């Protein structure tokens, strides 16, 4: 079986599980929304200020929500003792990892698709002219987040205090991603909006580097 096909089967399994409960998605969404609301309490921004600080806030919300949401992706397998079954399947460990990354990407992307319009309404940030470019930035940034996050979720699943361990491992590694994603988003929300290509290229480079590294180490991550 090809890696792509195996990964899509793992992806389908993850989506099916989530659709049965929908607990992960709703919790992630509400958490990110709370962060966005708290922002207004903490800083009381004017419209021009929210255009300046909004991109940072948005990405902080995604990063925090992601670092909480990614944790069950391996911990759930462990709790129900299905990790061994997955490991026994005649597919490469990269396919398992890839399927889980894809599932996490879908979850986070759905949460973002709901959150960004709410953010735009609450803080009066126009999205109309920049939608496609914004989607590009969001996709590249989210991809980097879930690549590193899924690998680290596999690591932290074996440690004590794992809910706490994942953000601790993940957030410092994502620091360059945060800078790039925020700068790219800010250039889009500026007046006039323009997409800073250097940051888009940086995000793409981040994704490629970490995807290659995950491919290299995936056998060690899932070994018994």
């Amino acid at each position, binding site marked *: 079986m090809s890696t792509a096909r195996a990964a899509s089967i793992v992806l389908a399994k993850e989506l099916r599980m989530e659709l049965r409960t929908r607990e992960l998605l709703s919790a992630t969404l509400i958490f990110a929304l709370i962060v966005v609301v708290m922002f207004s309490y903490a800083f009381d921004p004017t419209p021009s200020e929210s255009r300046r600080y909004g991109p940072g806030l948005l990405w902080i919300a995604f990063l925090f929500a992601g670092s909480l949401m990614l944790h069950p992706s391996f911990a759930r397998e462990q709790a129900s003792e299905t990790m061994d079954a997955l490991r026994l399947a005649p597919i490469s460990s990269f396919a398992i990892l890839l399927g889980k990354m894809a599932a996490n990407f879908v979850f986070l992307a759905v949460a973002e698709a709901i959150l960004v319009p709410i953010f735009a309404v609450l803080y009066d940030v126009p999205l109309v002219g920049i939608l496609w470019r914004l989607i590009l930035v969001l996709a590249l940034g989210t991809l980097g987040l879930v690549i590193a996050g899924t690998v680290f979720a596999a690591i932290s699943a074996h440690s004590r205090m794992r809910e706490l361990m994942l953000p601790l491992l993940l957030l*410092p590694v994502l620091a360059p991603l945060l800078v790039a994603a925020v700068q790219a988003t800010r250039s889009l929300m500026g007046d006039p909006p323009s997409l800073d290509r250097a940051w888009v290229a940086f995000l793409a480079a981040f994704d490629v580097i970490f995807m290659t590294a995950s491919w290299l180490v995936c056998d060690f991550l899932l070994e018994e």
Partner: protein
Amino acid sequence: MKLRVSATVVVAAMMIFAGYAALFIAPDERTMHEIQRIFYFHVPAWSASFTAFFVSFAASIAYLSSKRDRWDWLAVSAAEVGVVACTIGLVTGPLWAKPVWGIWWTWDARLTTTFILWLLYISYLLLRGLIEEPGRRATLAAVFGVFAFLDVPLVYVSNRLWRTQHPQPVIFGGSGSGLDPTMGKVLGFCIVSVLCLMVIVLVDRYRLEELRHELDELRQEAETQNLDGQNAPGYVPTAR
């Protein structure tokens, strides 16, 4: 053993001389005067920490490809030594910056990269403390070690790009246009001394890891023997 004692004595002598050279031999700096002398320890601490982190990264890769415990011991020892050196760099930096720049800290590329590097390796050490099983701990920590080190150039580039777009007046770090020859010599000697010190500490830390491993093995052996016969000679009940 004898070699280690004499090596320690030599390094101690080097460190004493380095201190003397930094304080009395190196010429006075024109604008910063005495404050600038912290530079003879700040720069060596940075090079020591970076070397140690690189050793840890290389040892992590070596562990993943060979699965020999020794590489894991080296990786954790180097990470710990690197964190200590990095902490020295992070403390001496602001001490120098406050009188010269007028601020303790600036989010410049070099400073930010070092800070993130420090956080990453603290997380690495924390992670090791929280995984029980030794084989798994070694593998997963090595994977994280590789990712953490890969992140360093990315952090640096992102900050470079970011700060060059928004230049800050305070950035004139970097010794810039040439060093006085005596200053250069003293600095070189200080770097060599601190690197030697780092090697000595690293070797000791490695030895400690080896002893811990040995102790664990002996303990396990003792426990299996206790199961065989509780009244065997030399049986001491341990309160664990």
